[in-house]
């Protein structure tokens, strides 16, 4: 029981971190960013390259991953989202293609075998019969710290409020003196950085593979659909519902079925409450 609670909390924290960058773009930029998983992929490999292959300090590896992630987010906004402005189908298809291209690039550079990331902090803690790797604990703590900061940033700073304003009423934002282009760049940059960071933790939770962008994307979509458009609190709650559900299914029924229950939940919510459990357009 304790084991389930602890593992549930850890996994849920990770899921919340994974989904947050996706939620941000979905609710502010109104774009279903199907290449979101690619930030995690690239983040994981950048960390692997610098921290593990080049032997740089791990913190530097994480930092580089975050920087590359932010740059990817910015580049994607500039080169795809902005030129295609408003054409959602075109944006979604091109982001999906981008993810697949990046996956091929990763295979070309690193081969398609999976790799084990050395834990950021080695070692485990035993607590009430549960084994907790320090890395997973770190992932959950970092994830919580980031979610709390993000909540305050979005709700209590001028830039954060401007991000919400742009998503709620573009004209209202413009006449308040907000440059929506600049705000969008900030949003895409943050989303990329969050995705890359989540990628480092996700890869150390599971392993590094060129196809590791798919599962986080599904988790993110699930959390956004079940939670409703982009509330940070909603994302947090649903991440816990899904995280705990997967741990419970794994422990009580069968590990192979964990993903299936998530899918059933998505479909159920879509049918019964299409706007999501906490569905409304706020952050």
């Amino acid at each position, binding site marked *: 029981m304790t084991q389930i609670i602890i593992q549930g909390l850890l996994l849920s924290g990770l899921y919340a971190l994974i989904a947050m960058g996706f939620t941000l773009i979905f609710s502010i930029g109104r774009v279903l960013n199907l290449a979101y998983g690619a930030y995690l992929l690239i983040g994981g490999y950048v960390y692997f390259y610098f921290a593990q292959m080049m032997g740089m300090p791990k913190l530097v590896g994480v930092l580089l991953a975050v920087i590359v992630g932010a740059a990817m987010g910015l580049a994607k906004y500039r080169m795809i989202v902005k030129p295609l402005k408003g054409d959602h189908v075109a944006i979604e298809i091109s982001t999906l293609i981008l993810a697949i291209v990046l996956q091929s690039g990763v295979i070309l550079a690193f081969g398609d075998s999976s790799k084990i990331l050395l834990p950021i902090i080695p070692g485990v803690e035993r607590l009430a019969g549960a084994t907790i790797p320090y890395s997973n604990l770190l992932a959950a703590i970092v994830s919580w710290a980031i979610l709390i900061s993000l909540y305050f940033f979005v709700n209590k700073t*001028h830039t954060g409020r401007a991000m*919400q304003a742009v998503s709620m*009423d573009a004209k*209202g934002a*413009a*006449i*308040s*003196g907000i440059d929506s282009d600049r705000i969008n760049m900030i949003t895409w940059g943050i989303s990329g950085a969050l995705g890359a960071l989540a990628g480092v933790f996700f890869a150390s939770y599971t392993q590094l593979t060129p196809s590791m962008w798919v599962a986080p994307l599904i988790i993110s979509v699930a959390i956004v659909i079940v939670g409703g458009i982009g509330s940070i609190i909603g994302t947090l709650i649903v991440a816990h519902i899904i995280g705990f559900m997967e741990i419970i299914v794994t422990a009580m029924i069968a590990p192979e079925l964990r993903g299936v229950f998530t899918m059933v939940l998505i479909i159920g919510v879509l049918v019964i409450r299409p706007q999501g459990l906490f569905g409304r357009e706020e952050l």
Partner: protein
Amino acid sequence: MGFLTVENLSAFYGKAQALHKVNISVAQGEIIAIVGANGAGKSTLLDSIMGLTKTTGVIKLGDNVLTGLGSPAIVRLGVGYATERFNLFPYMTVRDNLMVGAYTARDDIERNLDMVHKLFPRLEERENQETMTQSGGERQMVSLGRALMTSPKLLLVDEPTIGLAPKVCLEIAEVLRRLRDEFGTTIVITEQNANFAMTLAERLYVLEAGAVQIEGTVESLRDDPKLTEAYFGH
């Protein structure tokens, strides 16, 4: 004369032309009204001053040319805009809506918030209410308040009384008058109702099909038969 000058302004939506060589001049501290029927081009004129439409011609505020600047720059130069549909942020509280208005005027927040609360005590009482749950009158107040949070020297107000109860209309008119008298704000309003416009403004411009047809002081226009016929029906 000439705090705001609009010279030969034409505005376009795609190929359709919505304004035809409009000329307007507003002195500092003046309240003027743009009067016109639905579709005359009133909102287009205000949007154009705000840099939101495709235009030709020249718009100046003081010594600054606004033409070609985007709305963020125009807001920084001192133009505030309360739009016809308010364009509020529905899931934000009254206070957060006002705070977004303060995006460019961050050093004046306390003073502006104070002024807004003095003009609209209701907004202080309701500061934690989300604007989506508010009445039309309250939304109009938030919209004006948000515009005032930008520290405007020129305030554009698009149809301040549309859809509002007569009592609320008077309240809004009173606030606009106080803004000009106590704070020296220059104000341009638009109206379909010439009667209301005349109670507030010193001069009127009558817009028809995107062109200025009549202009003059309220005194000179009060008995103008053309105006009487067209705009005192309501």
